[in-house]
């Protein structure tokens, strides 16, 4: 009267295979679940019982004990419902004893016996390999991203029982939909004026340079940043899978075509905690905003208002492209290869220092900018001053340049950089005048050694954007202009 069924549960972003043991014996009728279940798992008793009865399958009036092994790992979520139900059916002899041996089951049961979506299906599918996996029909395509043909989808418990009794075939998984239309990214055509801000966006997108915009309220910082993902090229298949995995683990709804194919854009509010940004949690380690933004854009609006600890925590992932979250329960590495875009006001009142409208004391300003440490500022290749647009330009009927035009230049620049990298050729040397300008800046102490390196890199991107073979003086000047707001934030 014992059945053993395979399933998986989610600990953080990772799946953990779970073996569900169901024992049915004589005794007072009852239903117990042991093995560190959380509230959702414990409540599966009622769901499983109702689902069986609704599906026309009798519930045993005997003592039912369910053990979730390994018993030391906490199990969460309703994804174990299906495995428990199958276990009960096998243990009571309603299904053949060996029908579930080569299968794993993940799915939540409704009281009517229907199967419901389970978050994190990709990680669960990984954890159940090499067994064939039975999931709700709506999750089948997500699971088959990583498991291919070893995935079966069913829509109800009754249907599953028929199949396991070998009286029906697995239903076909709905075919992948055509690639979804791009998500609703606002277009750069809405931005009037701001040639410098647009230029900075293009450079950031083309060279993956982290961007900090400094400007008064109304200078279009947020508007520009929201349009940055539109300039990035679509994700490659590998990137797409990484992003989908993280989004699946975080339980975020995936697009119709299941694979996330466009760079994500995440804009956490400045009240976000450190854990919300970098990921974590007490025992279920979940990806944070920086991982959800991987291969996309993380936008920190009002960067000066974020908790200092949260900002400093970004330093290591910015460097390594991965964040390792360690807790007593274990360590998880989440991908964190994001393009960081940030915006801040030049001072707490936002007006800056030039038009006399600023009412901040010097101490206020120092306190505001002190929140950004030098090492964090160093991660920004572009520190760009923005000004409020000219009223004439704002009121003009003529739309700005569209995202598509800009994105084409970005794609071309990236292609040039990639071709250079593929050819393995050494970087073409700087134009003598450009090298001279850099040397002069270094001598004047206007640049540090690290700054010099960064300026040279940004200048290379600028040259790629305009299609120049060699970095010349103008490109260096441009790169220098793209970091002039450092003065404001390092006062």
């Amino acid at each position, binding site marked *: 009267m014992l059945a053993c069924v395979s399933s998986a549960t989610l600990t953080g972003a990772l799946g953990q295979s779970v073996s569900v043991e169901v024992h049915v014996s004589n005794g007072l009728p009852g239903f117990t679940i042991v093995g560190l279940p959380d509230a959702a798992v414990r409540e599966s008793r009622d769901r499983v019982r109702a689902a069986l009865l609704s599906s026309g399958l009798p519930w045993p009036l005997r003592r039912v004990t369910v053990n979730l092994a390994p018993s030391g790992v906490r199990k969460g979520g309703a994804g174990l419902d299906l495995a428990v139900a199958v276990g009960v059916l096998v243990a009571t002899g309603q299904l053949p004893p060996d029908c579930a041996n080569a299968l794993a089951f993940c799915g939540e049961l409704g009281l009517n016996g229907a199967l419901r979506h389970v978050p994190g299906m990709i990680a669960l599918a990984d954890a159940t390999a090499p067994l064939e996996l039975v999931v709700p029909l709506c999750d089948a395509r997500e699971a088959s991203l990583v498991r291919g043909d070893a995935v079966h989808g069913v829509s109800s418990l009754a249907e599953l029982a028929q199949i396991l009794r070998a009286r029906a075939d697995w239903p076909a998984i709905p075919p992948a939909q055509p690639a979804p239309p791009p998500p609703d990214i606002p277009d750069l055509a809405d931005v009037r*004026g*701001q*040639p*410098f*801000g647009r*230029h900075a966006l293009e450079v950031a997108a083309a060279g993956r340079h982290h961007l900090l915009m*400094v400007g008064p309220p109304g200078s279009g910082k947020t508007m520009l940043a929201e349009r940055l993902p539109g300039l990035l090229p679509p994700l490659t298949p590998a990137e797409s899978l990484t992003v989908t995995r993280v989004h699946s683990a975080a339980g975020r709804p995936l697009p119709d075509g299941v694979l996330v194919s466009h760079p994500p854009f995440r804009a956490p509010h400045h009240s976000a905690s450190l854990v919300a940004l970098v990921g974590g949690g007490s025992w279920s380690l979940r990806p944070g905003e920086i991982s959800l933004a991987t291969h996309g854009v993380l936008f920190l609006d009002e960067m000066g208002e974020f908790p200092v600890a949260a900002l400093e925590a970004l330093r290591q992932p910015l460097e390594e492209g991965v964040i390792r979250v360690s807790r007593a329960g274990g360590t998880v590495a989440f991908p964190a290869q994001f393009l960081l875009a940030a915006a801040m006001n*030049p001072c707490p009142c936002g007006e*800056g*220092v*030039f*038009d*006399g*409208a*600023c*009412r*901040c*004391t*010097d101490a206020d300003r120092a306190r505001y900018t002190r929140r950004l440490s030098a090492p964090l500022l160093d991660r920004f290749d572009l520190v*760009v*001053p*923005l*000004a409020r*647009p*000219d009223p004439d*330009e704002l009121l003009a009927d003529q739309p700005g340049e569209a995202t598509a035009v800009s994105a084409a230049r970005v794609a071309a620049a990236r292609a040039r950089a990639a071709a250079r990298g593929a050819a393995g050729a050494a970087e073409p040397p700087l134009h003598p005048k450009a090298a001279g*300008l850099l040397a*002069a800046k270094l001598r004047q102490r206007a640049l540090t050694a690290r700054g010099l390196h960064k300026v040279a890199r940004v200048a290379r991107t*600028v040259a790629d954007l*305009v299609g120049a073979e060699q970095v010349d*003086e*103008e*490109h*260096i*000047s*441009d790169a*220098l*202009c793209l970091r*002039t*707001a450092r*003065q*404001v934030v390092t006062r």
Partner: protein
Amino acid sequence: MTAAQGNRGLPEEAYAAALASVPQVGPATLRLLLASDAPSAAWSRSSFPGDVARIWQRHEEKGIEVCWHGGPGYPARLENDPDAPAVLFCQGDPCAVSTHPTVALVGTRSPTRYGIGVAAQFGADLAALGVSVVSGLALGIDGAAHEGATASGAPPIAVVAGGLDDPYPRRNARLWARVAEQGAVYSESPAGVRTEKWRFPVRNRLLAMLSDVVVVVESRHRGGALYTVEAAAARGIPVGAVPGSIRSPTSEGTNGLLADGCFPVCGVDDIVTALALRGVLLPGGAVGAAGAGPGSGAGPDAEPGGGAEYTGPDRALFEALSSDPVSLDHLARVTGMELPALCGGLERLARDGVARDIGGWWERT
């Protein structure tokens, strides 16, 4: 009385510093104590606790000169003032304040670019004309005035609130050292005294006493600079104010002063005239020269001949720049240049010293 043995052979200055260092002794008490007695006599009469030798050592180590009212080296222009400090501390040359005419340039600690530019220009022009610029070494207008005045010319004079051993604000420590080297930094506070709030109005009064003319460059409504104005007005020292935009909060105070009858300062010549009206003549009779001096209140057309050496796009760029900072967006719109070319042009102008950027905004220098 172990201290008394160590005190043997200490100069009078040591006792003056010790008296000023007693926390219970305020400016008025100090004046009273030293009214009739020499510092050493006043010290032994009043039996305050304190180690004179140590206090003196601290001043000597930091190169702080001490003079007292009636003693040697005490600035002559303070002698007849009823509120003059009884003990004065000085870094640099204590006589610096007596050699040249003095003009105070004061104003708000959070000025606009306009105020900073005007203060620096007046500072430089006055120093070049042989006028000592007096200011408070505070952030903002004070600092800008001294930045200009320490370039060359007459010795700069600073009057600060706290002890001379601890530059405050720290950010101006380098400027402080330069002023002490070229001129003098005065304070009523002995070494070791923290800069407390009440000392600023006292500082501002001393600043007014040391000046022949007081000019307020930029001040908010009820700004601290107005203490200096009050003290100057009480002593009949002429006060000028630089007019500003009626929309700028940093010019509310100065425009108010103009309404109250202060003389308007639209250039260095106005200051020179005010000096001349007081009977203070510039060394070398530079009054005439002042008229032809460097342009003041520089507007976009201040140097109509400037930039002649530039041609083509650089010329257009030069003309698009003015002494008011403008954004790159503005320059791109006005000149119609592509950004890399625009940045390249600005870099060339900056290298020639005719343009500079302030946090991403560009202005003509």
